[in-house]
């Protein structure tokens, strides 16, 4: 397999999280199919990648805390809670839609 192979993803942010990502709700990305160690990339890898490469805002702690997506953010893979899909270990597939939702509390 070509080591430079990439997979297309749609990553979306809502509930205010988009404000951390250049005020853009929908991001069309091409990510490497394999990580540095040659393993297929996972959602956990994607979170790290978004934090390091895509997020311009410096307040990383509003997205990732202690190496995990911060409490109060739901991660949905193809519109299903990532806990139904194996959480961070889920292996990304071409054209997956990954949605990050910050829970709202206002009323």
């Amino acid at each position, binding site marked *: 397999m070509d080591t430079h192979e990439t997979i297309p993803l749609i990553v979306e942010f*809502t*509930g*205010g*999280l988009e*404000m*951390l990502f250049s005020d853009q*709700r929908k991001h069309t990305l091409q990510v490497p199919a394999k990580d540095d160690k040659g393993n297929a990339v996972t959602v956990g890898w994607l979170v790290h990648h978004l934090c390091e490469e895509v997020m311009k805002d410096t*307040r990383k*702690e*509003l997205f990732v*805390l202690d190496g995990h997506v*911060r*409490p*109060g*953010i*739901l991660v*949905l893979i193809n*519109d*299903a*809670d990532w*806990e*139904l899909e194996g959480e961070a270990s889920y292996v990304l597939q071409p054209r997956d839609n990954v*949605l990050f*939702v*910050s*829970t*709202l*509390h*206002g*009323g």
Partner: protein
Amino acid sequence: PVTKKWPLLPEEYKRYGRQMIVPSIGIQGQLKLKESKVLIIGAGGLGCPAAAYIAGAGVGTLGLVDGDEVEISNLHRQILHTSAKVGTKKVDSAISFLKSLNPHVNYVPHPSHLTPQNAEEIVLNYDLVLDCTDTPSSRYLISDICILLQKPLISASALRTDGQLIVLNSPPLPAGDPAGGPCYRCVFPKPPPAESVVSCGDGGIIGAVVGVMGVLQAVETIKLIVQGKLKAFADPNEVRDGKTNPASMLLFSANSSQPFRNVRLRTRRAGCFACGKDSGLSLEGLKSGNLDYVLFCGLASSVDVL
């Protein structure tokens, strides 16, 4: 049970006629509405429109919980209150409006905030709860009391141009029963860091956006009532097929090209602090102050963007 020939007043047939001819409602649905007792916690941007449509639909009893008074900054979205009511209790202001809309409902004001101490007494006699509040600490408290008292919970929230809606604890089976609907803690086991929590006061809100969410809470309320889903009877003859009941969340983003999105959430979390097998919750513990919700959620003083 003895069925009266005319179970509604003549005026009620006229008032609810348009709704009773909807096939999924019918006279049976209208009678279920009339027998039901609904509690709305929070008489603000969500609670006002939810209350108007739930009262309009003809529930038997509608309780409103809110300790706040009407402020001028509420009026762009809290449409039951009027300029003349600024400074009065929100529950009284709302109920005076609701009485003029539909006098056939029994309205119960609870002019205080929900606390671990008063929660059991306030919630106990209702069939269904709407969380129309605006802080994480109240959302955890309301979810916990709904698990303890086995009430379905319709929870909504809104901020800026976005809204979210989840139906929790539906069916409202006892803690430890995996067939019950998940609770707020199943979905959000840890509260968000206080500095990531933004209120409508700090982040802003479009009135009609929170209005949409409140009216959608009323739609879900009417559905649960007419579908007979208020109680999950533990029928000893029922064959439990191991079926679980995941929740779903409706997301609304007014400025998105796809404004609504429905996402599938999880079922009950086996190890959930509230609804799991080894639940740490009890009515006594709650009342005695074992759970400090404000401490659990952190004191949100200043606020960042989210």
